[in-house]
């Protein structure tokens, strides 16, 4: 499904009245109440909340992996709620970057191959240009020297940096991060968060889900969920990058 390129002022992704119910075996339970959220390029949004607040549900709906029970998901203005599974997969491949908890690199592959697999998973050949892009992404994260190493030989912080490089290789407009620092020490967390923060300086919307309040200072926008509802949304940042400290303090 072709999705038109966004304009810097239009949202990369919109959740219009999106909610989600689950059947727990006895009754239908609403884990995400209707939300109206827009995520813009050049914005680093942190979605936070305690366990069971609905933040992972929100993320998987944004990732087009979970279908909302109600509402619509728009990517660059196009309604993608009901497109086919294959089209959703292709859309994820072309428009999304993912950084998962524990990096989720394939241990059998080298670091470079792990980055390239994000371009080749639907069978596209790896061209010289793609390889250069993958190497550039690794270089940007300081991981080029590890490109020939097997993924399972890296430290946790290195794995996450390689995962960020993988998220960047297709030059996506939306990067979704699921607790990327939960298994990292403070030093590695700082490096990873700064790398993600830097990405939001580009025309990319970066959305990070976490329950760790230590990452809040990096956010341009903070959304807090409680019991499946948005309890706090600091709104879109109109201030220069890096000014969230004041917002968080307030």
């Amino acid at each position: 499904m072709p999705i038109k390129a966004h304009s810097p002022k239009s949202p990369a992704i919109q959740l219009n009245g999106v909610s989600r119910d689950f059947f727990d075996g006895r009754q239908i339970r609403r884990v995400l109440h209707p939300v109206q959220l827009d995520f813009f390029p050049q914005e680093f949004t942190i979605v936070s909340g305690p366990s069971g607040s609905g933040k992972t549900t929100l993320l998987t709906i944004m990732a087009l992996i979970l279908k909302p029970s109600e509402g619509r998901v728009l990517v660059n203005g196009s309604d993608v709620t009901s497109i086919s599974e294959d089209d959703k997969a292709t859309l994820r491949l072309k428009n999304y970057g993912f950084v998962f908890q524990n990096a989720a690199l394939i241990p059998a592959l080298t670091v470079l191959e792990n980055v390239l697999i994000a371009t080749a998973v639907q069978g596209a050949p790896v061209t010289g240009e793609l390889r250069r892009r993958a190497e550039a992404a690794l270089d940007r994260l300081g991981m080029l020297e590890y490109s020939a190493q097997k993924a399972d030989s890296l430290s946790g912080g290195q794995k996450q940096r390689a995962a960020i490089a993988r998220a960047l290789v297709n030059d996506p407009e939306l990067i979704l991060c699921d607790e990327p620092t939960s298994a990292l020490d403070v030093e590695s967390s700082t490096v990873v968060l700064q790398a993600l923060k830097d990405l939001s300086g580009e025309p990319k919307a970066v959305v990070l889900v976490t329950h760790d309040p230590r990452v809040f200072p990096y956010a341009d926008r903070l959304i807090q969920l409680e019991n499946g509802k948005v309890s706090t949304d600091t709104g879109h940042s109109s201030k220069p990058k890096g000014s969230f400290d004041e917002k968080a303090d307030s």
Partner: protein
Amino acid sequence: MRNSAAFKMLFHDRASALGSIAGVVAIVFLVGQQLAIFFGLIGFTSNLVDACGADIWILSKNSDNVNSSQSLPMAYRDRVAGVQGVGWVEPLVTGGGLFKTRDGNTQAVQVVGVRLPQMAGGPNRYAEGSAEALIDGEGITVDRLDLPLYGNPVRGDVFEINGKRVRIAAITKGQQGFAGSLVFTGIENAKALTGLRDDRCTSLLVKAKDGVDVPDLVRLLKHVLPRTEVFTAQSLSISTRLYYLKNTGIGTSFGFTTLIGALVGLVIIALTMYTNVLNKSRDYAMLRALGARRRDILWIVFLQSFYVAVIGILIGFTLLAGFLAGTHDTALPSYLPWTVPPVHALGTLVLCLLGSVLAMRRAVKIEPASTFR
């Protein structure tokens, strides 16, 4: 890239990958060696026909295999010799005999009497001695691999068949029969040993002249000798094999063991490929989240099954070649017609892919959402 990634993902879990390959090797080797022994044994049934050098066999009426012919008048030989297109025609005598061994026991043998100097239907490979040995009136041949049955005699040793004196004049190679060891001798001696009348033989072997259409000649001979059965050598070979297949249970026996071999391999492949997919669930879920469609995951697992099949087939056929080489010219019959290995390889490939169906079904059901938990 995706294809090489599939390969690396497969072999990252070495125990499971090697288990799958072992399954394929088991199919190739177990089934292959069973087939080789089967074809080797079944080849014994038609050994006499396959190595005779004749184009056409004439047997008594209602015969359906080379060993079932009763007797024919020797005069038929002259009638056949006069038919246009016949190059030569030779009588052959076959019959059962009891070979009295040194320790007083008896051993069932099949006596084959050939006429000199053509010696059509006679042995063509000798370990010791030569065809000239059969000129000796009481001379017989025994096969190298049957020597232990007779107490390991040497040339010149004298024995009895059906109570009549014979002398081992030559030792043959690869001349074993299914219904008993093949003992060759001159036609007159064979008649004496088997009690066949002088004016009879059990079959006539015919060689067509160069350029003559053999099936046409068969039709002509059937017309000339209506109270006989006329076969091309090839059709008699097939008919003889089919006879033993139907009447000895050899087909059922080998078919069953072959099936068991295939099933054992299939189960090993199914379990190990399934385990491999289970162990890689997180990787597949992550790939689905990145943008892999179900068919992309299916392709990866399919390719892995294909790699397992190809590697297993190569190893299995190497072992099988070793088995065939090791059993060549031994008492264990083993022979694979050239058509069997390609069919066997293709069948194994299909079995391997079938064995991976469960793994494929499991792989395509892996949900990308699990990556986010």
